[in-house]
Structure formats: structure tokens, C-alpha cells
């Protein structure tokens, strides 16, 4: 094998590794997208069991567009057994900001959910995550839903 072929193979190998190696930001995005997707087909309790750290500090804060506010801790999250109705809402996440410090991270993002009926729900969201056995898990969530100003 000549030197040129060797360099070419090495170059392709490095490119392949770079493509396969997900950055921490990409891993966090993948978790958030997986959590959102699971919400459309699983009970809330199953979603949190799969993607969350469930201890006495686990917490969800949500305020709806009408101002109705809910705070749920572990016990309330584990009591949410209702399975969502089948639907094909489209979810778009954007404007990610990451604050990563080793095995903890805060991420903020904007979300727009559009239902088949054309209804839209916008939100500004925060997740606080921790890495457990190499996998990011959610520990705290803050969801500010709002009606966009025209």
C-alpha cells in the first residue's frame, strides 16, 4: 500500500469517527426529542421512568397560556397513568442554549406544537439534566406555555 492510499484510508476513518461521535449537545437534543416523541405514545409515568431521575428533588413546573400553574414532584409524576390520545401533532424545537458542566447540564429551548386541527401551543422550556452511567437523564423541567403576540 502506498503512502497516498494509507493517508486516504486514515482520512476516511477519522471522518467516520467524527460522524459517529455525538457531542454532549447532540446527546441532550436526542434525549429531549425522544422524551417528546414518547409523550405522544406512552403514559406520563412511563415517560418519566424512562427518561428521568426520579427522586425527592425531581420536579416539573408548568404554566399554561391561561395562567393555570402546576407543580408536580415524584409522587404526582408516578401517579399520572393516563395514556395520551392518538394524534399526529408536529413538534418543532429551536433556539437551544446549553450550559454544560461535566455531568450536569441546563438546556433552554423554544417549542411550537401544531395539532392536526391547526391549534398551536408555544412554549419556552428549561430542562436540568444529570448524567447517570453515561446517559443524560432529566431531573427538573420548567415549561412556560404562551399565546404568541400578534
Amino acid at each position, binding site marked *: 500500500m502506498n503512502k497516498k492510499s494509507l493517508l486516504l484510508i486514515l482520512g476516511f476513518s477519522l471522518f467516520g469517527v467524527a460522524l459517529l461521535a455525538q457531542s454532549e449537545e447532540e446527546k441532550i437534543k436526542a434525549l429531549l426529542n425522544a422524551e417528546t416523541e414518547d409523550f405522544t405514545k406512552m403514559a406520563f409515568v412511563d415517560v418519566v421512568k424512562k427518561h428521568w431521575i426520579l427522586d425527592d428533588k425531581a*420536579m416539573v*413546573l408548568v404554566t399554561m*397560556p391561561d*395562567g393555570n*400553574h402546576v*407543580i408536580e414532584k415524584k409522587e404526582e409524576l408516578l401517579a399520572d397513568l393516563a395514556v395520551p390520545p392518538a394524534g399526529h401533532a408536529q413538534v418543532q424545537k429551536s433556539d437551544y442554549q446549553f*450550559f454544560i458542566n461535566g455531568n*450536569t447540564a441546563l438546556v433552554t429551548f423554544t417549542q411550537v406544537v401544531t395539532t392536526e386541527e391547526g391549534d398551536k401551543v408555544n412554549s419556552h422550556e428549561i430542562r436540568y439534566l444529570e448524567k447517570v452511567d453515561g446517559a443524560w437523564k432529566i431531573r427538573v423541567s*420548567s415549561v*412556560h406555555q404562551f399565546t404568541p403576540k400578534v
Partner: protein
Amino acid sequence: MALLCAGTLFAQTEEEKIKQLVEAETADFAKMSFADVVKKHWILDEKTVAMATMPDGNHLQMKKDELLALTATPPEGHAKVRKFDYLFFINGTTALVYFSQEVSTDEGDKVDSHEMRYLEKVNGEWKIHASSVHQFLPKG
């Protein structure tokens, strides 16, 4: 020994330092413009963000430039603020803190909130980088 005891008594834990910052930020809101409060207590860069939803559902998201544009000084008042139910998630030089808050004005109005701050240590001092405020009317 006495010196060691005194040292222990005066040594603030990271949780106490964070509580002190959060309470100082609240106290300053009553006497300074928002712009001056964030200049004093926040890290101001392109990631800085403050999210707040009011009891009527009105929602604001403000980044650095919007925060620095809030130059109006608050009216004088004597609201009482109580913070409780603190939860801390500290990882070296970063921390998330959650707390509940009750504000009562002299006129008897009350606003409750569940709040979070994300903090980072800069030159040994905690500063706020992101904030989430969910205000709501007390039930009952």
C-alpha cells in the same frame, strides 16, 4: 479550638451563599432598576435568559439586551417577601436552585411563585445566568 469553632460558625456553605445571593437580588429589585440588578448579580452574555409567566398567563422571555433596557426604577413600596422550600443542585461551579416565594404588598395583594435560578461561580462568587419564574394566584 475556639478559633476553629468560630471559623466553622462563620464558614458559609455553598447553599447559604446561593440563598444570600437570591435574597440580595430580591432586596435590590425593590430599590434598583432591573438593569442595575442584573449588572450586579448576573452573568450578562448571549446565553443570559429570564423567563417569567404572570398569573394571567402573560409571558415574557428576556435576553441580555432586553434586561439591560429595563432602566425604570421601581416605585417605593414595602412588599414582604418570603422564600421557602429551597432545593439545591450544586455541581462545583454551577448550580440550579429552586424555591417557592410569597410576596404580600401593603395593600394586601399577594403573588405566589415557583422559581428557579441557574448560577455559575465567577471569581469565587455565585452569579445568576438564567431564571425561570412561574407566578400564580394562591388557591383558596
